[in-house]
């Protein structure tokens, strides 16, 4: 590395212990001087940037955590939904083996949704009539899955739980509307064609599957409720924002 290249390199990565940098500095006086200059600059920069921390900040944060509502672990169902699970004898199991997120054809997604609905859809719907999740728990569930929901929609959620999807965890939500309960299966990692598709499920429920900008959502409701119109609206009210996910 010549001195010009070294100077350029140090402007991006000033680590003086990088083997290439060490070698360059050893190889010529000019490079050694470039490195010295860089180290002087970095020392001044670090000194200027250094700000004393606010004493006791970590302790205050920990103390505040103690006063907060205990958020549930997101790898387990919510406290209220856990009661639902026990009451109806449903266990959250993986329908499909773990796999890399992939673009599934609608058929595979529909197969998954049909299985899911047959497994516990009606039971969770029934349970929502007598059991409700806390708003904080719903918010925690959604944040943890990277699901961003319009407040107006969020306010309608009466029951929520984690559910398996073809591409990892999703949210199984029951909405309480004036017309009756509606189920949403939000699949953050599952892409589907943009054009909505519909199926009639084994018990006569109407289901619409719509793609979001990222992920997808299935809207399941009694045929008389007009799930298509609901799906169109909900599409504007849900988005997947996985910046909190790693």
């Amino acid at each position, binding site marked *: 590395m010549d001195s010009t290249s070294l100077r*350029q390199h140090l*402007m*991006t*990565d000033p680590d003086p212990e990088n083997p290439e940098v060490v070698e360059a500095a050893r190889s010529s006086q000019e490079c050694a001087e470039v490195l010295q200059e860089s180290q002087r*600059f*970095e020392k*001044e*920069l*670090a*000194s*200027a*940037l*250094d*700000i*004393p*921390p*606010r004493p006791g*900040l*970590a302790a*205050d*944060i*920990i103390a*505040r*955590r103690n006063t*907060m509502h*205990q*958020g549930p*672990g*997101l*790898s*387990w169902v919510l406290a209220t939904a856990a009661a639902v699970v026990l009451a109806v004898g449903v266990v959250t199991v993986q329908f499909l083996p773990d796999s890399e997120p992939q673009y599934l054809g609608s058929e595979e997604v529909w197969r998954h949704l049909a299985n899911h609905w047959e497994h516990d859809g009606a039971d969770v719907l029934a349970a929502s009539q007598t059991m409700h999740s806390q708003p904080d728990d719903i*918010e*925690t569930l959604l*944040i*943890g*899955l*990277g699901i961003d929901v319009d407040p107006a929609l969020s306010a309608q959620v009466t029951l929520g739980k984690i559910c398996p999807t073809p591409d990892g965890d999703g949210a199984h939500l029951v909405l309480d509307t004036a017309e009756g309960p509606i189920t949403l299966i939000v699949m953050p990692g599952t892409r589907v064609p943009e054009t909505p598709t519909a199926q009639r499920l084994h018990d006569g429920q109407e289901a619409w599957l719509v793609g979001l900008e990222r992920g997808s959502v299935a809207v399941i409701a009694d045929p008389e409720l007009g799930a298509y119109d609901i799906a169109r609206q909900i599409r504007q009210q849900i988005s997947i924002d996985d*910046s*909190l*996910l*790693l």
Partner: protein
Amino acid sequence: MFNRKDRKGRFDALARLYADDLFRFGVWLCRDPTLADDLVQETFIRAWKGLDSLKDPSKAKSWLITILRREYARTFERKVPPLVSLDDVIGLEQDDETPDERLEKARFRDQIMRLEPKYREPLVLQVLMGMAISEIAEALELTESAVMTRVFRARAQLKERADNEDRQQEMDSHGQHES
């Protein structure tokens, strides 16, 4: 799955490890230590709620930085923080510094603060928080190439401004001699 005690332990460890660094970054982000304090506290509230989504502990710093920046964006939408001199609010002076050193540091800080945020933020993360380019890219939701370009430009601008100020001082001092 972590039980409640594990969860608290994990969270407390994160707070002890990263609260101070986040505060420093927050001050450089918003130039207001009170706001930075609030931001850090709100960040950790959100981190507590979403803790189970942090699958890889080695990415905790990037994760927390991402949350803090989003909190700041929300705050900025509601209230534009006052632009004040960093030294006015920090009032830092080290006992072993000479007046010239303090002046130099104040000038350098002023130059850093005048960098555009898109250059200042990655530079702060690299130098102050010791983050690697890949970590910074994750935290700022940029490509590694973009981060490298930005830290390069940040340094280039700081050096150029420092050179310009030195030249100006030299000219001023020549002018005084001649008069």
